[in-house]
Structure formats: structure tokens, C-alpha cells
């Protein structure tokens, strides 16, 4: 390779206003949040205009930043002067590191970092700001886009909600939090965004907090994630101190919180980056990801979080917030790469957790009757794919899957919302209130189908390109077993999605879908709330058993016809209850986002359609950082608002692994130590070469899944096949399995009944008991003893001894004896206590005398 010897000049990369002022993307929603909370109630649209405007502005800036980032990458590539051999040198089997793929070293594109001093400690200054690289710009755009669509959807969906303003405020604050996290320049900023999202999640899940079930779900979500956050705090601390020596030496001015510095440190080959510290740090951080991204075994909060309004489920709990954990792993990927030895095919913690999550969540999706819970478990399962990808070195497919998954999962949730809004009368129960909706709601049905196909990975929908890439790369990196787990998961996905599609859209209409309403006083519901019994509706009791879903919504529907139920109108029901009773298609404000998302669910996969050749790999080109060693020239902090870069590419040393040909996997960034004076920011991950056979295999697996599921649905739900109906009653194995799944592997029971209850009651009470009965009692006893002693001194010494000395010293002895009488209680135990207590005191005195 010629490039290996050639000296490259520092790259003159293009930048731009949007990239340098990226922080506005997060600041605008944050300001909008404050405006909504302060003035929202007085605005004609209850503050939603602030939210929408801010999201639109953020989207504009994020789009601008995206365009400028692409220009920057292109300028870097042009500067390099290399020709990009496109799609030519693709070998079979294990492919080579990127550097050799095009026969040309692609330069590392330095991220645009803007930062201000945020806080300082020990003379070190820590910043806050924005970090623009491919990953962050991609996700910023994604978050702003999805947030905007969801807010549009919400206008109609939560109209007339009694906390409409707060709802939009929380949604906007959430977006701000996610954007802050995605653009995080350092770990503390990342924690900031991470926790703000946790808070918003709490606020939004508990949006209808009048109902204890909702507030409990909110508490559970916040608390579970918080358990994982122990890992975030500990991991950040460990990484900070482990890396600080290397960073101080190699890049003064940076510190162990800076993302870029952490990346460089992890790949530096320094002894501090290969010991126990990085393993502990990475494990701790991944525990945080387990909590946030709903991985096994902390996934239990996510399905419960469906208690929130549907837009919340769609935005927070499927497409954005829960990918925060995935994002964290992707962001400081070098740390995990080194810690778990992913380079050498180490079977990482991440991959195992991801694989377990895929399967267990998919299985749980089979026994849910609630359409949102099916989707929630599906989300958990898809997050498992992403983690599996990251854990096995398939960085790009995992990030790409985040991208595509956001569209189709968001679309599916909005469809579910649309169904409940207009089709099933605020119920989410597929078995009771849905069925046969395809004719009534054609647009929703079409969008649902498209997204389902995308989710299950059918060619040519979006999920096919990303999910198959993950599975393909997992196999390519040598994890054959995990690849089969992934394929198995894909088949399961097809099956449970078929089941829920069938139950929702096909078959006979049931319950609300058939036009039965609470107003009719009848229906398949076993509930008999009647109009003239408002206090019954108030109590909310009879409802809870029927739907564990946002009860107040249906509740309020029951409680009033067309007046505003003042104190307890929690539901986002719109105003057409009275007019039409049957299921119908939703309004425009709901359908537009759904259709846009369905469109993207179909076509967004082509942004990185690897099987079509390298020219289609846009995401790979612009998002994946290049694994190139870059010379370090550290530049000290500049003033507020100015672009600060810690690492300026000077001499780009080409890694010499390109000559290795087949052995390309053993050298390069993250595989060998970068040359003196240079640093890597991203490991040389491998990319699988798609082959027709592999694609066919996965499509066949999905097809088998569909075939089984369709025939089962027809047999079970339509024909009520005798062999299948009542199987759980007849077969003990089936019953046990079913029960095990329905009880969610008993994990919830373990957490709530064993751990939480133990801490909240016996342990806390024991601690408090010790406080009151031991510590406080000791204090009281000392006080009482002091009082007694004083009294005794007064009575016996002062009054009797001193006085007695005057009266006659002969009585002294007997009086003292009487004084000591108090201790002579005659009780054996007390004597024992005194004996041993005195012995202990004497021994302490002896010890002190002898030692001191």
C-alpha cells in the first residue's frame, strides 16, 4: 500500500454552523419545556405549540448538521485524494478491516466538539457541550424526527386530557434529555441526559396517577432503571480514574470524562486499559444499560411502563429512550471492545445478555392479550438484537438497527394507539375488544402490516436490512450459536406478530370493535358501570380487573357522555363518544405520522443496503468512525463556545494490517497498540459479506415462522380446532409452560415480593428498631443514668454523706450501702449484665492502657 508510507497532512475538514452550534438542538426543547410549564396553560393550544415548534426547530438544526456532517466526511475523503474502489474487493468468508477494503485508507473524520466549562474540581475543568460525529448526528436527527411525529400524533390523541399541558411539557423535556445525552461530550453530560429521561419516564408513565396501578408502574420503571444506574455511577468513576493518568500524560486539557479521550485511552494499549479496571468499569456501565434498555433480567419494567399514554410508549419505551443503553455502548464502544475482548471473539457479557433477552422476551410476547404489551416485549427482544450485535463486534448493524427499528416500532405503537383511539374504544385488549378491524381502519391496517413486515425482517422492508446484517455479522465473527439464537428469535418474531395481527385485524369483531360500548350497558365486558352511578365509576375499582391498561381513560369514557368530567377526566378521549359508536378510521393528525413512519419503515433500509453493494452503504460511510490511528496534538481548552478539539489529526498512520490479507483481523485499531504519539478512536470491526445463501436462510426462517403462525391462528382462533383449544387444560407440560410465561418467569414476583418487600419492610423496620431500641435506648439510658446519678449524688453524697459527715461519720458506711442498694435489685440477669458489662469495660481499659 502506498498510503502506508505516505505522510498525510493535517486534514482540512469542512465544518459548518449547524455542526458547531449543535447544542441548540437540545437547548431549544429545554427552553420550550420551561415555557410550556410557565405559560402553557394560558396558550390557546395548551402549550403544545411550544413543544411542536421546538421539535421542528431541533429537527431543522439536526438535519442541517447531518448535511454538514456528510459534507465533512466527503471533504475528508477528498482531501485524502483516494479513490474509493467501490464494492470491488469483497472477499468471501471473513472480510477484511475497512482500511483494506477499498484499497485505500479512509481518514478518520474528527468530530466537531463544542464545549463550555461546566464545573471544575481539583483544578480540572469539566465541560458540557456538543459532540458531533456520525453516530450522534444520526441519532439526534432520529430523535428530533420521531419526537416531532409523536407530538403531532399526541395533539389529537390526548386532546382534552386534564393534564394536556403537563403532558407536552414532559414530552418536550424528555426530548431535551435524550438530545443532551446523544450529543454528550462527556460522561457527566451523558448521565445528565440519562437521568432526565428517567424522570420524564416517571412523569409520563404516571401521567394518570389517580390510579394506583399507573403510579406503581411509574415507580417501578424509575426504580428499576435507578438500580441499573448504580452501574452508571460506579462505571463512570472507575473509567474516569483508570484513564486519567494516560489522558493527563497524552492529552493535557482533556480528562477522564471526555468521550473522545475515553475512546482513545481504551484503544491505546496502555496497561491501564487492559487490566481489571476497564473490565469492572465496562461491566458496571453495561449493568446501567441492562436497566435502561430493558435487558434481561431488568426488563420487567418496560411492559409495565405501557401504563403510560400510547405516545409515551411509542416515543420513550420503544424508539428512543430505551435505546439509550444501546447508545451508551455504541458511544464508548472501544471500552467494551477492550474490556470484553470482542476483537478476539471473546464471548462477551453483552452478547450473552442480548441473546437471552431476544428469546425470553419473544416468548413472553406470545401470552400477552394486551396489544401494547406484545409490542413492549417485541421492543425488549429487538433491543436484545442490538446488544447482541454490539457484543459481537457488529457495531454498524446494531446502530443501523436502532435507526430502522425506531421507525417501524414507533409506527406499530402509533397504530396501536390509533386502534384504541378510534377502533376499540380505549381498550388495548386484543382478545376482548378487537378483531376484524382491517375493513374499518384500512390505513391503520396497511401501516401496521408494513411495519410488521419490517419488524419481522421481510425483504425489502427496513428490518430486513438491519436485522439480517446483525445476524450475518454475528455469524461472520465466529459466534455461530448466537447467530442461530438470532435466527430463532426472528422466527419467533414472525410468529407473535402474526398472532397479534390476526387477533387485531382479522376474525370476528369482538367487544368494542364490534361496536359494544359502555354506553350500551352490555357487551362482552363483565363490567356493569352505569351512567347513573357516578360514584361507582369514581371508585375505579370494578375497572381495574378488566383492563390493566390506562383505566382512567375508559373510566372517564364511562363516567360521562359529553361533558368534561372535571376532577377525574384523566383520559385522552376525544369528543366524539357521543356521536358515533362504532370503530372507524382515525383523524388526519393521527394518520399523518403513522403514514410517514410506515413509508420510512418500508424504505429506510435502503440507506445501508449492504447486499446491494458498497455504494448503498451510506450509513456505513457517514456514521461508522474509521479505525485509523491519528496523531495526537493536544490543544488546550479555548474559550466558551468556541470549537475545542483535543485531538487533531496530523499524520494519519495507516495501519499496516492491510498487507496481512486474510489475517487482517489480527492488526489494526483495537487489535494492536497504535503507534507512539497516535491514538485510535474506534476499533477495526469486521463486516460480513452478504451472500445469497445467508439471506435466503434467514428469509426461509422468517417464512417458516409466518407459516406456522398463520396456520396456528387459523386453526386456533378461526376454526377453534379441538386439538389446540384447551391444550393448556389438558397437557400438564403446556400448562406449566403457559403459567411460567404468564407469570413472566416469576421475575416480577422475585423482585417485588422478595427483594423490594424485604428491603422495604423487615430490613427497614429492623434498622429502625435498632435505632429506637438500641441506639436511642442507650442514649436514654445514659440520660436516665445521669439523672439517677445526679439524684443519687444529691441524696446520698450531698445530703447524707457530706451532711452525714457533719452528723456523724459512723453513719456514712451504712448510708452508702443504702445508696448502692439500688443496684442490688436481686435480679440475676441484671447481675449478669453488670458482671459482663463491667468485665468488658475493665478489659477495654486494660487494652487501652496496654496498647496506647
Amino acid at each position, binding site marked *: 500500500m502506498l498510503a502506508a508510507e505516505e505522510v498525510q497532512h493535517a486534514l482540512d475538514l469542512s465544518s459548518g454552523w449547524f455542526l458547531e452550534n449543535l447544542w441548540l438542538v437540545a437547548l431549544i426543547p429545554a427552553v420550550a419545556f420551561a415555557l410550556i410549564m410557565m405559560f402553557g396553560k394560558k396558550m390557546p393550544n395548551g402549550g403544545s405549540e411550544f413543544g411542536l415548534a421546538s421539535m421542528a426547530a431541533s429537527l431543522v438544526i439536526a438535519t442541517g448538521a447531518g448535511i454538514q456532517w456528510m459534507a465533512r466526511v466527503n471533504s475528508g475523503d477528498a482531501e485524502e485524494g483516494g479513490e474509493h474502489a467501490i464494492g470491488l474487493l469483497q472477499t468471501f468468508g471473513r472480510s477484511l478491516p475497512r482500511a483494506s477494503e477499498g484499497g485505500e485508507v479512509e481518514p478518520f473524520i474528527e468530530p466537531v466538539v463544542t464545549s463550555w466549562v461546566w464545573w471544575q474540581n481539583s483544578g480540572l475543568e469539566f465541560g458540557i457541550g456538543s459532540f458531533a460525529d456520525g453516530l450522534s448526528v444520526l441519532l439526534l436527527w432520529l430523535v428530533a424526527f420521531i419526537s416531532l411525529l409523536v407530538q403531532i400524533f399526541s395533539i389529537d390523541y390526548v386532546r382534552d386530557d386534564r393534564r394536556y399541558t403537563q403532558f407536552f411539557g414532559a414530552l418536550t423535556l424528555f426530548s431535551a434529555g435524550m438530545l443532551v445525552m446523544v450529543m454528550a461530550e462527556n460522561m457527566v453530560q451523558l448521565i445528565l441526559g440519562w437521568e432526565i429521561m428517567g424522570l420524564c419516564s416517571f412523569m409520563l408513565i404516571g401521567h394518570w396517577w389517580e390510579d394506583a396501578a399507573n403510579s406503581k408502574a411509574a415507580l417501578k420503571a424509575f426504580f428499576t432503571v435507578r438500580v441499573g444506574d448504580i452501574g452508571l455511577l460506579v462505571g463512570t468513576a472507575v473509567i474516569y480514574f483508570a484513564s486519567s493518568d494516560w489522558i493527563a500524560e497524552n492529552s493535557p486539557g482533556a480528562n477522564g470524562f471526555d468521550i473522545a479521550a475515553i475512546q482513545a485511552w481504551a484503544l491505546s494499549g496502555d496497561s491501564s486499559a487492559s487490566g481489571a479496571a476497564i473490565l469492572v468499569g465496562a461491566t458496571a456501565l453495561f449493568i446501567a444499560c441492562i436497566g435502561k434498555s430493558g435487558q434481561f433480567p431488568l426488563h420487567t419494567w418496560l411492559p409495565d411502563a405501557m401504563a403510560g399514554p400510547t405516545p409515551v410508549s411509542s416515543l420513550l419505551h420503544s424508539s428512543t429512550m430505551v435505546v439509550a443503553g444501546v447508545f451508551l455502548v455504541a458511544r464508548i464502544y472501544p471500552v467494551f471492545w477492550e474490556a470484553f475482548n470482542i476483537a478476539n471473539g471473546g464471548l462477551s457479557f453483552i452478547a450473552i445478555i442480548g441473546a437471552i433477552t431476544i428469546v425470553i422476551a419473544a416468548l413472553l410476547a406470545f401470552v400477552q392479550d394486551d396489544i401494547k404489551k406484545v409490542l413492549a416485549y417485541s421492543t425488549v427482544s429487538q433491543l436484545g438484537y442490538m446488544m447482541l450485535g454490539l457484543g459481537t463486534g457488529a457495531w454498524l448493524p446494531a446502530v443501523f438497527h436502532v435507526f430502522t427499528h425506531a421507525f417501524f416500532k414507533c409506527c406499530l405503537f402509533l397504530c396501536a394507539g390509533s386502534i384504541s383511539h378510534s377502533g376499540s374504544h380505549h381498550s388495548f385488549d386484543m382478545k376482548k375488544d378487537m378483531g376484524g378491524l382491517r375493513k374499518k381502519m384500512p390505513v391503520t391496517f396497511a401501516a401496521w402490516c408494513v411495519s410488521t413486515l419490517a419488524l419481522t425482517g421481510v425483504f425489502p422492508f427496513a428490518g430486513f436490512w438491519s436485522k439480517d446484517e446483525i445476524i450475518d455479522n454475528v455469524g461472520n465473527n465466529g459466534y455461530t450459536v448466537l447467530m442461530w439464537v438470532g435466527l430463532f428469535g426472528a422466527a419467533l418474531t414472525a410468529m407473535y406478530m402474526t398472532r397479534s395481527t390476526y387477533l387485531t385485524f382479522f376474525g370476528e369483531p369482538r367487544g368494542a370493535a364490534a361496536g359494544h360500548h359502555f354506553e350500551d350497558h352490555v357487551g362482552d365486558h363483565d363490567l356493569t358501570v352505569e351512567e347513573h352511578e357516578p360514584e361507582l365509576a369514581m371508585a375505579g375499582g370494578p375497572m381495574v380487573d378488566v383492563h390493566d391498561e390506562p383505566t382512567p381513560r375508559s373510566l372517564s369514557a364511562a363516567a360521562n357522555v359529553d361533558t368534561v368530567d372535571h376532577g377525574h377526566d384523566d383520559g385522552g378521549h376525544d369528543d366524539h363518544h357521543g356521536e358515533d359508536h362504532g370503530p372507524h378510521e382515525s383523524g388526519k393528525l393521527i394518520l399523518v405520522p403513522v403514514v410517514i413512519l410506515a413509508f420510512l419503515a418500508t424504505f429506510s433500509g435502503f440507506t445501508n443496503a449492504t447486499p446491494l453493494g458498497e455504494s448503498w452503504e451510506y450509513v456505513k460511510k457517514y456514521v461508522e468512525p474509521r479505525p485509523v490511528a491519528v496523531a495526537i496534538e493536544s490543544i488546550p481548552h479555548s474559550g466558551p463556545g468556541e470549537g475545542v478539539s483535543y485531538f487533531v489529526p496530523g499524520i494519519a498512520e495507516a495501519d499496516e494490517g492491510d498487507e496481512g490479507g486474510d489475517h487482517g483481523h489480527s492488526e489494526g485499531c483495537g487489535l494492536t497498540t497504535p503507534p507512539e504519539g497516535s491514538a485510535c478512536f474506534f476499533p477495526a470491526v469486521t463486516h460480513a459479506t452478504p451472500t445469497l445463501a445467508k439471506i435466503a436462510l434467514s428469509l426461509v426462517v422468517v417464512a417458516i415462522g409466518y407459516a406456522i403462525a398463520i396456520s396456528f391462528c387459523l386453526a386456533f382462533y378461526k376454526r377453534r380446532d379441538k386439538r389446540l383449544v384447551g391444550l393448556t387444560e389438558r397437557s400438564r407440560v403446556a400448562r406449566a409452560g403457559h403459567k411460567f410465561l404468564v407469570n413472566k418467569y416469576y421475575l416480577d414476583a422475585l423482585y417485588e415480593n422478595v427483594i423490594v418487600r424485604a428491603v422495604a419492610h423487615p430490613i427497614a423496620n429492623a434498622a429502625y428498631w435498632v435505632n429506637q431500641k438500641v441506639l436511642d435506648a442507650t442514649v436514654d439510658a445514659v440520660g436516665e443514668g445521669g439523672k439517677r446519678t445526679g439524684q443519687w449524688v444529691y441524696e446520698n453524697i450531698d445530703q447524707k454523706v457530706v451532711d452525714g459527715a457533719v452528723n456523724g461519720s459512723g453513719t456514712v458506711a451504712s448510708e452508702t450501702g443504702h445508696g448502692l442498694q439500688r443496684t442490688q435489685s436481686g*435480679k*440475676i440477669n441484671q447481675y*449478669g449484665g453488670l458482671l*459482663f458489662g463491667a468485665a468488658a469495660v475493665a478489659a477495654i481499659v486494660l487494652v487501652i492502657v496496654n496498647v496506647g
Partner: protein
Amino acid sequence: MLAANFLLLAAVLFCIGVFGVIARRNAVMVLMSIELVLNSVNLNLVAFALMNDDVDGQVFALFVIAIAAAEVGVGLAMVLLIYRNRRSISLDELSELKG
């Protein structure tokens, strides 16, 4: 084998015994706690014998066992007598020794 093992175990038993003596109200239970204390001492004696490679400790332990047996005999006899006289063996009701 660490020397401290036996001694620490004995210390734990001793302290539990002491707690029992202080905390329990029932005379029989107090006697049992005293047995715990005695046994912990015996354990110490045997451990010392082992450490010094000398059987003197074991001889002492045997003496203690014998005396303890006597003590339990007399102790229980006294408890029995008390019970017979007062229909109760609660120690906190016994305060004849009060001066």
C-alpha cells in the same frame, strides 16, 4: 489450621451465651446459656492444648465437663424447688437477694 479459628468460634459462642444470660427470663434458658459459655471455654482449652501440643488443656476440659454436669444437676434441682414454691421460674420475679 489457623490458631485464631477455634478461639474466634469460642468467642462467638461465649458472647451468645452472655447475651442469653442477660436476656432470658426463664431460669432453664439461663442455665442453657451458661452451658454455652462453659462449652466455649472448653473449646478454648482444647484449642490451647492443640497449640501447645500438650494434653493439659484436655484434662482441664474434662474437669470442666464434670463440674458442669454437677452444676446443671444442682441448678435444675434449685429451679425445680423454686417452681414448686412459686409456680413460676421467671427470674425477674425472684428478688430475694434485693438488699
